[in-house]
């Protein structure tokens, strides 16, 4: 049935014409501009990018030549591994830190609000500023190394910059607050009565965590892992500023940027960007599929 069909005579109570689909003029006015903008500036560029990546650059032949050139070059191919080597540990470390912390803070502690505000600050400032600050703070003469040396923990300064460790640290600082706040939202939404019931039935603290809260937090943990991976997999500025961009931290985002903006090979640049999106969406899809097999029923009770 056409969306513009007028059924006013058949349904006299309804003031405006509506098609069977529930779509009418006012809905298009409300929602149309937003959908149009996303279609024009997101969907179309993506399709355009696929088109560009399938148009061989001068010197290459065949519609998949940009892809085969990327996977055929050992240095380019290594960028995938360089990125996974950062993104997977960073996500896991952040989860290992954030899950117990969110669990422990599920019932408001003293200073809860202040702590959450303090976590929002580094998250908002972004990775460029954090990387810039790390150059001063974590450098060989910076406060961090100075403090550890004064305390006698280390004999000589730790090399925390311009290598793999520097990028990993920057990713933990920038992403840990996001994952923690996300998990805190989940953990504090779980009905505390479920845990009390476990306690009454004789479960110890560890048992209550592993058998009650952890399974109930799993859907939230899956979402946090997916978001954390998504952001860390796209690491770019800190891989250049505090990493070793010519070597071990030449990540895939940097490879895509260099192809498009240093060699002006837009075909290759778009191809790498699409490879990147596919890998990222595959990992996220696997995580979300695993999540769909978990219990996701009500656990919030009256606490909302």
């Amino acid at each position, binding site marked *: 049935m056409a969306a513009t069909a007028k059924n006013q005579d058949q349904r006299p109570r309804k003031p405006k014409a509506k098609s069977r689909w529930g779509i009418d003029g006012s809905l298009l006015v409300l929602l149309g501009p937003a959908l149009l903008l996303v279609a024009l500036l997101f969907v179309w560029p993506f399709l355009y*990018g696929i088109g560009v990546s399938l148009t061989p650059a001068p010197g290459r032949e065949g519609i998949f030549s940009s892809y085969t050139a990327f996977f055929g070059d050992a240095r380019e191919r290594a960028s995938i591994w360089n990125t996974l080597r950062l993104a997977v540990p960073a996500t896991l470390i952040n989860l290992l830190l954030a899950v117990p912390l969110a669990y422990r803070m599920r019932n408001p502690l003293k200073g809860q609000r202040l702590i959450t505000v303090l976590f929002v600050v580094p998250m908002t400032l972004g990775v460029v500023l954090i990387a810039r600050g790390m150059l001063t703070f974590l450098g060989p003469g910076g406060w961090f190394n100075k403090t550890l040396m004064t305390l006698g923990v280390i004999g000589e300064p730790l090399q925390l910059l311009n290598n793999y460790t520097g990028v990993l640290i920057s990713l933990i600082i920038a992403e840990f607050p996001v994952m923690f706040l996300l998990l805190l939202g989940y953990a504090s939404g779980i009905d505390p009565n479920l845990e009390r019931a476990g306690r009454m039935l004789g479960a110890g603290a560890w048992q209550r965590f592993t058998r009650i809260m952890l399974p109930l937090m799993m859907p939230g943990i899956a979402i946090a892992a997916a978001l954390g991976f998504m952001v860390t*997999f796209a690491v770019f500025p800190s891989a250049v500023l505090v990493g070793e961009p010519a070597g071990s931290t030449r990540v895939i985002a940097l490879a*895509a940027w260099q192809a498009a903006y240093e060699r002006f090979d837009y075909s290759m*640049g778009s191809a790498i960007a699409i490879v990147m999106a596919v890998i990222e969406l595959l990992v996220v899809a696997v995580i979300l599929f695993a999540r769909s097999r978990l219990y996701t029923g009500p656990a919030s009770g009256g606490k909302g």
Partner: protein
Amino acid sequence: MTVKQRSGAPSLSTWLVYATVAFFILVVGGILFSVLLNSFASSWFGGWLPDGYTGEWYVFAAEEFNLWNVLVVTLAVAAIVTAISLAIGIPAGYALARRNFRGKSLALGLLILPLMVPPITYGIPLATMLYEYRLAGTIFGVILANLVPALPFVVLVMTPFIEQIDPNVERAARMMGASTSRMFVRVLLPLAIPGILAAGLLVFVRTIALFELTFLTAGANSQTLVVSLYYAAFSSGIRPAQSIDAMAVIYMVTTLVPLLLALRYVNPVNMVARGR
């Protein structure tokens, strides 16, 4: 009846929580404070504190990095992106909150998708396309690119907020003869002001802090602060470190002022629950 949660003395795990939080905050605080201190240092060689203090790096940075222009561009881009994404995003959020129609989940999915892929993946094809249409390198191109994540964010913040507003208020307004647009402007918008302020301030901050899309689409005269900061830090051998840190401090201030305003209206936990 009150159930006592735990005995009087804080347990070991409570101390572990505080210790982890304290370590994290010490490191982040150290990073931010060393930037702040260095920006005022006449020189700082190896000591705990700078050798002397001066404000001249701010003057130097203002000239060297064309800071005034960059600041105007940053605020203009963030303000325009905020205004457009609110103007388009609030009605869309209203439609998703109140209406039921076929394809609603498809529309919602389309609106969430830009937040599900990292900016750099769609930024490269988007920038390539903007170059094709000669929009890249201009402020207009930077605004278009920044709208892509900003609009979905506004929709996702506004939808649950509008869902909380009692629909009977709207019915009452309609019964008294208000047209849709009048009901929207006179009844719904005033009720939604806290949500609009929160969404607006957060989008403003996120646009100032979003690096990748501006980095990919900006030209020399359409850079925002975070991109200028990246370029300055990238070629840090060329200029004194203190002048780069002076720019970093200015970036921190422009980001943190709207953030602190936003925190009056939103719980930090809700800042990540949706949208990121």
